């Protein structure tokens, strides 16, 4: 078994125990146990205030854990002196929601800045910056200032800057939350390329399940400073255990009618309504194709959605079933042999 690249061992973070706040401590993170393997894209999702930003900052020790420990590449960074941490940070890039570029420097100057910190020679810096700007696709903007760039371009600069010193780890803190959907897609594809072409391990912090679906291999769901659920993205999407996770999954699938949808559907569709889950190994087509001939039931698709996730699909359909109660019951029973069916009453 390989040792994970990043490991949280019962890590916690409490703010405001310095004395002056008079004991009004706020616990941001509590007993976090997570292992992130080299080469994967790991997402941490949660609502604002769940502790995501603090969690990601424990990895490069911008915040220090107040309990437990955090190991990066086998080194416990919890108690390292600031000087040692600065060396470790050279190997961990970070991308921010608000980009955090220096307005006083050009795109070139911004990307070259971490190289200066790392002590690269001028000629090497110039070569590396040109390489990076090419990779993120903004070589023509090298001499522009951040003010002159669009959000998507700024984030490309941010990613180039974060990759400058060839880090093993890239931390992306809500890196697409300030961008429109189209630009979000471009930036996510860029991050994916960073992972596949350079083998950089990426930790993505987000509140959008769509981001998790697009790029992550595994996901942890954070709520009130605790990890409430974690696992491969496919598993979490297929069978979310916690209500919070279910709601996150639902934001992507949009497959389940909410109360407003339901009352509108009922106005037009007086028959019995059922929700059937869809996935590659749950095929409802064979049963439905015989609905009228075998069960004497008519059906109508009234709501639903199916999404691709990696190489499989997920989703659910809401069906109106019209026929004698006993007939409908029989059809539902047979549907249940292939998938989860929930009747809306």
């Amino acid at each position, binding site marked *: 078994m390989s040792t994970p690249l990043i490991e949280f061992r019962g890590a916690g973070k409490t703010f405001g125990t310095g004395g*002056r706040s008079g004991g009004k401590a706020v616990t941001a993170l509590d007993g976090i146990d997570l292992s992130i393997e080299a080469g994967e894209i790991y997402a941490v999702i949660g609502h604002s205030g769940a502790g995501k930003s603090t969690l990601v900052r424990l990895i*490069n020790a*911008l915040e220090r854990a107040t309990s437990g420990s955090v190991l990066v590449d086998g080194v416990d960074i919890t108690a390292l002196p600031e000087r040692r941490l*600065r*060396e*470790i*940070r*050279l190997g*961990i*890039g*970070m991308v*921010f929601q*608000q980009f*955090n*570029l*220096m*307005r*006083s*420097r050009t795109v070139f100057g911004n990307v070259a*800045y*971490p190289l*200066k*910190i*790392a002590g690269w020679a001028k000629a090497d810096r110039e070569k590396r910056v040109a390489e990076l700007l090419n990779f993120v696709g903004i070589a023509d903007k090298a001499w522009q*200032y951040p*003010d002159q760039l669009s959000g998507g371009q700024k984030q490309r600069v941010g990613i180039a*800057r974060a990759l400058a*010193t060839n880090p093993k780890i890239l*931390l992306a803190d809500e890196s697409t939350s300030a961008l429109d959907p189209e630009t979000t897609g471009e930036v996510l594809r860029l991050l994916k390329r960073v992972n596949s072409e350079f083998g950089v391990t990426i930790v993505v912090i987000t509140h959008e399940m769509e981001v998790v679906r697009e790029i992550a291999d595994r996901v942890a769901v954070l709520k009130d400073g605790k990890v409430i659920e974690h696992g491969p993205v496919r598993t979490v999407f297929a069978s979310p255990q916690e209500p919070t996770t279910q709601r996150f999954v639902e934001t992507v699938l949009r497959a389940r009618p909410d109360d407003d949808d339901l009352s509108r559907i009922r106005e037009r569709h007086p028959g019995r309504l059922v929700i059937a889950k869809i996935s590659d190994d749950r095929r409802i087509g064979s049963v439905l194709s015989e609905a009228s001939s075998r069960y004497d039931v008519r059906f109508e698709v009234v709501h639903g959605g199916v999404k691709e996730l990696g190489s499989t699909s997920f989703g659910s359909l809401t069906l109106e079933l019209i026929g004698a109660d006993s007939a409908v019951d029989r059809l539902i029973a047979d549907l249940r042999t292939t998938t989860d069916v929930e009747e809306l009453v």
Partner: protein
Amino acid sequence: MGTNWDNLRPILLDAVGQTLWMVAATMVVGGFLGLLLGIALYSTRPGGILANRPVHTVLNVLVNIVRPIPFIIFITAIGPVTIAVVGTQLGTTAATFALICAATFGISRIVEQNLVTIDPGVIEAARAMGASPWRIITTLLVPEALGPLILGYTFVFVAVVDMSAVAGAIGGGGLGDFAIVYGYQRFNWGVTAVAVAIIIVLVQVAQFVGNRLARRVLRR
């Protein structure tokens, strides 16, 4: 009453020279010390890159004590220190010393206020890249706040011209001294008006240059 400009001209030129010297020395030395003190105030504040509560409190109180003292009182109150450092309490050098002290504290606040406007996220990004506090101070803080800093220093320049006129009170020389001795005390409004006109030109030029520089740095 005819003014004898042939006699006054060399005295006036001397006065202009003294004012320029006092202001320049104050802007360079006081400007530098004020920058250091301002950076110290900013960096040691809670949550700052060199957060240190006791140091911050001491600096803060010190600046708050010195800054509100009117310069006419400050220049006399600081007398013993001036004698200890300069050797005399009178003359242009003594006045310049007092100006530098007052300007240092005034400038430190302006520097601190401008540094506060820097986005903390940019500083966090630099920390995440492994930058030391010293590197952040030298390569990030000043460049990022340069535009507003130039405007702040321009504002201080005008204030220092104003304060330098008070130097006349301790025989410090300069345009203020000239206007009072040869203009006000001899009821010669013409002389006063010339001194005022020169000060106005000086301030206008400084403001113009400051604005141009700031605009260039801010690229707008």
